[in-house]
């Protein structure tokens, strides 16, 4: 059947079979060239194998919960949103969360996802106690920091190329409420935005929206948004009696493919409205519920259709700290000059991280959406070059179009990853369209 990632580009004709139990799953792995697929939220071709794509939707049970430590054990196909639904009412929230709750735990491990608290708490691996993995030999192996250590380390951020993750033990964070105190600061340009990030490193959450249409003095004009988990005493009387209630919001669904130009016009208008509104007043706390704060786009089911039939591509890189200002300026300059494509992008400060193959490293990460056109594909190649020139690297969970040369130049850890895969026979047992494209 024809499948694609969340960006709906590229589309591949793939053999897809969803095993129902461990024996069936192990048999699928034995068939080789296998890649596990969670909820299909990687943007490109990370979770597609033309010969052997393995949806993990039948591995969707929560196995245990320890209300002293906050440790949940669950099968890899469980959605993050289900974890929140089950445990937020009991006072627990994910320790690290990406920008959508429609990801599976297995996918979160494979991409070693990060959230708005990376500068403080690191990537998802921080809260992973152990994983069970089917390796190339077809055996289920418990991997942790003190057991099958290498396999554990390579698997976090390993894009499913070390084996199939079947079970994950993760620790949640105790919270008093399901609300976030948000503070929005206006930055007139890139330097101000970076200064704001650097002076607020103690904030739990921080992220910026950048208006990519600005040039010159206004280049990098942005809204920097900080967040803290609210205490009960921060809440209005109207919600204080049920601070942990999981609201079931009405979801809007995008019913059909929009023409390719529409989303960005809206998002920039929304940005401008917020920007000018915030610029006129002193930053102060506003209370935002967890769903709107962490997952604004989840409220629009199928928002990926907004980009039209041809789909869209994400570009996300990280530039090391010492090169960040120069690198980001060059990237934003190229984007605003191109004038087409991404109008709004997300900027985030990463904290220090040293891991075998995970994406984050200390510095600044920039994420952009582009509708797929000849022009934007060319622009993204240009952005690749700028990133390389500033010592940066790329997020594989977002990638759908990079060249293997670019990846090889960006990441000195690549040869070790590849050698490890070959030595453990993970290659060719586990392969995705992306791993073949990139020579992983």
């Amino acid at each position, binding site marked *: 059947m024809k499948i694609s990632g969340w960006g709906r580009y590229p589309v591949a004709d793939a053999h897809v079979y969803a095993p129902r139990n461990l024996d069936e799953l192990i048999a699928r792995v034995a068939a080789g060239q296998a890649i596990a697929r969670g909820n299909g939220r990687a943007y490109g071709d990370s979770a597609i194998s033309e010969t052997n794509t393995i949806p993990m939707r039948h591995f969707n049970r929560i*196995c245990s919960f320890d209300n002293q430590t906050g440790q949940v054990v669950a099968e890899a196909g469980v959605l993050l949103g289900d974890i929140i639904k089950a445990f937020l009412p009991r006072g627990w929230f994910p320790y690290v969360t990406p920008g959508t709750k429609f990801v599976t735990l297995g996918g979160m491990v494979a991409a070693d996802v990060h959230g708005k608290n990376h500068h403080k708490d690191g990537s998802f691996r921080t809260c992973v106690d152990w994983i069970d993995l089917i390796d190339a030999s077809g055996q289920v192996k418990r991997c942790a920091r003190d057991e099958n250590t290498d396999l554990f380390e390579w698997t976090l951020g390993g894009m499913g190329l070390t084996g199939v993750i079947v079970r994950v033990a993760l620790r949640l964070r105790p919270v008093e409420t399901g609300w976030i105190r948000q503070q929005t600061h206006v930055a007139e340009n890139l330097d101000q935005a970076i200064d704001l990030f650097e002076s607020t490193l103690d904030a739990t959450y921080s992220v910026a929206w950048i208006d990519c249409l600005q040039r010159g003095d206004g280049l990098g004009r942005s809204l920097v948004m900080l967040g803290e988990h609210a205490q009960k005493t921060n809440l209005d009387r109207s919600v204080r009696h049920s601070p942990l209630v999981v609201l079931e919001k009405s979801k809007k669904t995008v019913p059909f493919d929009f023409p390719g130009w529409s989303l960005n016009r809206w998002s920039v208008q929304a940005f401008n409205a917020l920007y000018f509104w915030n610029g006129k007043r002193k930053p102060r706390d506003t209370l935002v519920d967890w769903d709107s704060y962490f997952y604004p786009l989840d409220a629009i089911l199928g928002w990926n259709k907004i980009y039209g039939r041809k789909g869209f591509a994400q570009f996300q890189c990280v530039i090391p700290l010492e090169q960040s200002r120069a690198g980001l300026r060059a990237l934003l300059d190229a984007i605003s000059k191109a004038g087409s494509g991404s109008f709004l992008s997300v900027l985030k400060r990463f904290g220090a991280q040293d891991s075998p193959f995970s994406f984050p490293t200390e510095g600044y990460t920039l994420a952009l959406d582009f509708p797929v056109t000849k022009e934007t594909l060319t622009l993204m190649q240009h952005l690749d070059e700028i990133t390389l020139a500033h010592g940066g690297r790329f997020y594989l969970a977002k990638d759908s179009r990079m060249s293997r040369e670019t990846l090889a130049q960006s990441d000195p850890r690549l040869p070790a990853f590849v050698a490890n895969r070959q030595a453990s026979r993970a290659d060719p047992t586990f392969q995705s369209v992306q791993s073949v494209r990139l020579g992983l």
Partner: protein
Amino acid sequence: MITGPVLILGAKSDIAMAIAHRFAKEGYAIQLAARNAQALEAERADLALRYDVDVTLHDFDALATDSHAAFVDGLDPLPQIAACAVGYMGEQGQNEQETEAAVTVMRSNYEGPASILGILANKMEARGSGTLIGISSVAGDRGRATNYIYGSAKAGFTAFLSGLRNRLAKKGVHVVTVLPGFVATKMTQGMDLPAKLTADPSEVGQAVFQATTRGRDVIYVRKIWFVIMMIIRNIPEKIFKKVKI
């Protein structure tokens, strides 16, 4: 208003688990009944953890009808709601040629379910309250060459539910007949089913929950099946016997 547990018979099926999830979400305690119920431990833990409800496992064999009375006596408390998702399609070709196979299909879809619901009905009637839910099939609306062994047993079950409803209507016990149409489950895995006519198990769970709370009698999970079956039922036999359908 939550007044008692929901018993799920034939709990290993996808439809059964979807119904269990839907009721557990509302805070109902769940009793999962199936052959070798211990194999459902992972499902039990999952339901209990997700919804913070009590979930118990009960050994139940739909074909061992002489054990049904004791099984019901062993339920503590007697469920407020019981849903029977027991069913077995078999393979039509084999069912035609091997009596043994055909009888298993007939017993799995009619005799077993009718036996257990009959016993539960009597207990609920004595108590004066309860809901019985039978998962029947559109295949029971008219016998067709491609699956009439299964269909005939489901037809019997549908008639049984109808009669039971008629009998208990004034006794405080409600009976729901569910006709799911195509559902993407283990049973239909590998079949080439049209997407517009095929429901996800969770849709069945939702439809069953709504029918229970709203007091509906007979439901087709996707409304289109009501129309399709109306047409199929009304084709004159002279023509029907010659069409491949």
